[in-house]
């Protein structure tokens, strides 16, 4: 683990980079901020240095607010921690969630407090904000 890791939170903390920091800065304020291409209107998730659809560098960031709904597009249920820090989180549900208001945007996250028996494709979920350190937060999902 890096020295930036705070006591108490053992999982990897999302690393802010030159290309993605507005997304994570937004998350810290409990706000979903997506990168969008101004040339072709494609949303970029995950964000990058330019648009993966048309190559344009004319990008902007668009807030989607704090209340975000979606449905499970696909999922896996892991019974073994494949990364350090997840040993107490198994079975861990990792899902690709299709946003209700922007179905073309899909966000990977965990569906929390959900039994493996209940998870299924199409399950309605809502975004919640998990405060992982004093100044960092990340979006997660629970059943809507």
């Amino acid at each position: 683990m890096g020295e930036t890791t705070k006591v108490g939170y053992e999982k990897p903390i999302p690393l802010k980079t030159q290309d993605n920091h507005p997304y994570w800065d937004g998350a810290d304020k409990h706000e979903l901020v997506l990168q969008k291409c101004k040339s072709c209107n494609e949303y970029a998730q995950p964000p990058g240095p330019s648009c993966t659809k048309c190559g344009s560098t004319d990008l902007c960031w668009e807030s989607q607010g704090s209340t975000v709904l979606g449905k499970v597009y696909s999922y896996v249920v892991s019974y073994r921690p494949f990364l350090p820090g997840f040993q107490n989180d198994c079975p861990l549900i990792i899902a690709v969630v299709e946003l209700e208001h922007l179905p073309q945007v899909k966000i990977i996250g965990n569906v929390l407090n959900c039994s493996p028996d209940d998870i299924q494709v199409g399950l309605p979920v809502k975004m919640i904000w998990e405060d992982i350190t004093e100044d960092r937060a990340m979006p997660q999902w629970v059943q809507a």
Partner: protein
Amino acid sequence: MASIKDRYAIVGVGESERSKNSGTTPLHMALDAARAALNDAGLEAKDIDGFMSYSENDSCTAHQVANYLGVRPKYVKDIMGGGSSTEMLIADAIGLIETGQVNTVLIYRSMNGRSGVRMGGGGWGVDLLQTAIEGGSFIIPYGAGSPSQWFGLFATRHMHETGLTKEHLGHVCVSAYEHAQRNPKAFFYGKPVSMEEYLQTAPLSYPFNKHDFCLESDEANAIIVTSAERAKDCKSKPVYIMGMAARQCVSHAHYWKNLDEVAADYVAPEVYKMAGVKPEDIQVASIYDCYSWVVLRQLEAYGLAPRGEVGDFVAAGNLRMNGKLPTNTAGGMLSEGYTHGMNNVLEIVRQVRHEYEGTERQVEDCEIGICTGWAGPDIAGAMILRK
């Protein structure tokens, strides 16, 4: 562009010892595999004027391998890559031979995949993973650090859409393990698995249990590619390359959103067109099998079974020895060994040249085979080979 159909051949294949702990370096294993391939082809090391390899920064360089075979080649090349790299490097080799820059190329993959850097996880710091993997900051914090989880997302969606079941995944595993029982060098030789045992095995990461995962091994594989003309002078029976194609699609290598589209969907029509054959002409297959589901998705992509009928196709036993399409007949990466696909290339060459003639390992009368590579839904490559 001139057609390369049947104008190039694989004339030598070889491997090092396969183990869980080689106790030696990738360079030693690469040299062993290279010598075995040279011996198979009846060539001297000095006959090789191009050396190429692919790796995930876990191997030795082509320059080193050439040096320690006592050769000073015209061309060396090391690329970063996993599945489908063999097909892409063969294409490179053909291009170099076609333009007169080299005559004969040796391509290898060497890795301590079990005792060294493991693809299944381990050996990497989590911050490194976030930067090393494209989009890593968006998956690693959610615990998605294993290829089984990334591929699993595709599998769950595809199973939902097409009606594939856990039992269908099981047929891929059971047939692969069955093939491994005829291959004393396979990791799971002597360890067959029945459908009942498969279905009772607890999931590691749903929809996959341990049998759906490829294994991890320490080994090196090598192949030698040359022109059809030079192939005539080799001691081995040449296996001719009828067609090959590679393709990239979907924008991210790990953060996958469009789970309906895979690179193999684009490779398939091109490889059949170049080879001038149809899916029903294929008699034996090496289908990239890092996970069981990947085989099912490729059967669909390459038209070997129609979408929606792939499950029935495997349930009918068609991947087995007497099925319509004996597949991964040495056990594949699920049960033989794992070199990011090259061991499957070695096997298809041996099948197509009837190296196992007179034994239960030979797919009878097979003349045309397909070999596919799959780095992920993002990158695929394939080639069609003939006797």
